[in-house]
């Protein structure tokens, strides 16, 4: 009979992933140096947009990873971050600082409440519900022109300082790049820690077999809603950053095509790793930029690439990398 002590060590401790974390640190550090390595403003500006996209994709991917739910409507939270920030500012409804705080909180809060209801619903029905919620909000901001000019969108002007911070920093590609990079890193680390926590394990169990989770004594609705809220909060943060950087909000921020492309990016990156979607987003963003510059037929090129990449690497880029590493190690 195996002795209990050895069993604990082998069966329960997950394999240590030291090389992974070292690699992560290197990537993180290298990223910070970029603006000082003579990257052009154009590149930095694109990077800012890519990172914002990466954050949105991270939210979407995290939901897939942790809840097994495919959201077609995460743009709702992205856009909500923008509108909760921009609309009160433009109409002078709230002190700017309050608007910022609300913009960070409201998407997650709304998601939690929504989540209590809609995350009970499985599979594609959930996808469609999330789409419906998002499109309903989209139609509201589209049709209520007094909010922010409907389809035409609205420029948002910020006070010069917020929380004592120079808002100009949020609009300059160089400083904004650093801010976004740091925030993305923080988000990824935070989510990663979540997945390692007991609560994270519980959400995975619920994803795998909700009924059984109930029969081993766990409440299953709140954890689902909590994951939904967390992923929405990340999307909302992305929306807030986008609004600061662009100084502009429009219904497109909530449109399903944005939800769709976030999902595409997440899947390309692979949702099994927390950082997969972010990687997918950045790669996809730049690939699209490059192809878009090169040919008018970029949709076809992207389409074909998407098909080929998915057929060859169904587990996404992160899955592919993991496999390469595994083979190297073996």
């Amino acid at each position, binding site marked *: *009979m*195996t002795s*209990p002590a050895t*069993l*604990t060590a*082998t*069966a*329960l401790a997950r394999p240590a992933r030291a090389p992974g974390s070292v690699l992560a640190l290197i990537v993180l550090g290298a990223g910070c140096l970029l603006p000082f390595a003579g990257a052009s403003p154009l590149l930095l500006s694109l990077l800012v947009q890519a990172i914002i996209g990466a954050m949105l994709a991270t939210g979407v991917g995290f939901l897939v990873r942790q809840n097994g739910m495919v959201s077609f409507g995460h743009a709702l939270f992205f856009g909500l971050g923008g509108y909760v920030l921009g609309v009160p500012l433009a109409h002078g409804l709230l002190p700017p600082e309050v608007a910022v705080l609300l913009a960070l909180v409201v998407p997650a809060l709304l998601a939690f409440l929504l989540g209590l209801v809609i995350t009970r619903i499985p599979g594609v029905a959930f996808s469609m519900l999330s789409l419906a919620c998002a499109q309903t909000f989209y139609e509201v901001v589209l049709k209520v022109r007094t909010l922010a000019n409907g389809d035409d969108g609205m420029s948002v002007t910020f006070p010069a300082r917020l929380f004592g911070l120079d808002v100009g920093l949020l609009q300059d590609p160089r400083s904004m790049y650093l801010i976004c990079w740091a925030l993305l890193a923080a988000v990824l680390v935070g989510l990663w820690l979540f997945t390692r926590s*007991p609560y994270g*394990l*519980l959400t*995975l*169990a619920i*994803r*795998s*077999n909700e*009924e*059984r*989770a*109930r*029969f*081993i*004594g*766990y*409440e*299953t609705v709140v954890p689902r809603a909590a994951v939904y809220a967390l992923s929405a909060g990340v999307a909302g943060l992305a929306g807030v950053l986008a609004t600061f950087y662009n100084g502009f909000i429009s219904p497109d921020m909530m449109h399903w095509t944005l939800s769709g492309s976030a999902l595409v990016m997440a899947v390309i990156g692979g949702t099994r790793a927390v950082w997969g979607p972010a990687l997918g987003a950045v790669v996809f963003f730049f690939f699209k930029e490059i192809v878009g510059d090169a040919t008018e037929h970029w949709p076809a090129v992207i389409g074909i690439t998407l098909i080929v990449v998915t057929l060859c690497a169904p587990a996404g880029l992160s899955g592919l990398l993991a496999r390469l590493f595994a083979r190297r190690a073996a």
Partner: protein
Amino acid sequence: MTLPAIEGRALSRTYGGFRALDGVDLKVARGEVRGIIGPNGAGKSTLMDVLTGRAATRGGTVLLGGRDISALAPRARQRAGLARSFQKTNVFLDLTVGEQIRLAGRCATLDNGEEVLVALGLAEIAHRPAADISYGDRRRLDLALALVGRPQVLLLDEPAAGLTVEESLAMADLLKDLARRWHVTVLLVEHDMEVVFGICDRITVLHLGRLLAEGTPAEIRSDPRVISAYLGTAA
């Protein structure tokens, strides 16, 4: 006089007009191993579902240690000390065996979990995802998930199905042991008569959703109604 560990009064359940369970009364003492047998479709799994709250009760009361738990959700019943395994294996396919045992034991490490893993012979495959283990292993995992929460009352739906005879007997020993040492009350639905007659203190026989007979193994074994409806040559 001590309260029964679990008691059901006039338990009923219908499926669209079909009476799967029809006014069954049941009283099981603490530490008892109670066998539930009966022909296929007699309502045994339905009884388990009604006791654990998987299927809503239509009439009837469930008492756990004297406390009425009829209105509680499955989760709350589990926390109150009522655990179960399933006839159709019901495990977390995406988690490793160790992970789900840890979760079910509600602990960060596996203290009492190990004992269960070892006892059920799952220790060697603790690091494997449940999706990759054989059917028999999954059945044992299902049982382990129910056991590891240290329940007062344990409902087992055909735990020996798919196990080799040796393993069935080992499991029977384990169950007996549980009942003795931890005063766990066991309700055992099983078609393996060797196991049933080997370890049950008393046996309840269901037929067509109703109580057909109840008694000691010896009484049941010789009950002609039970023989013709259920046991056949196994008697």
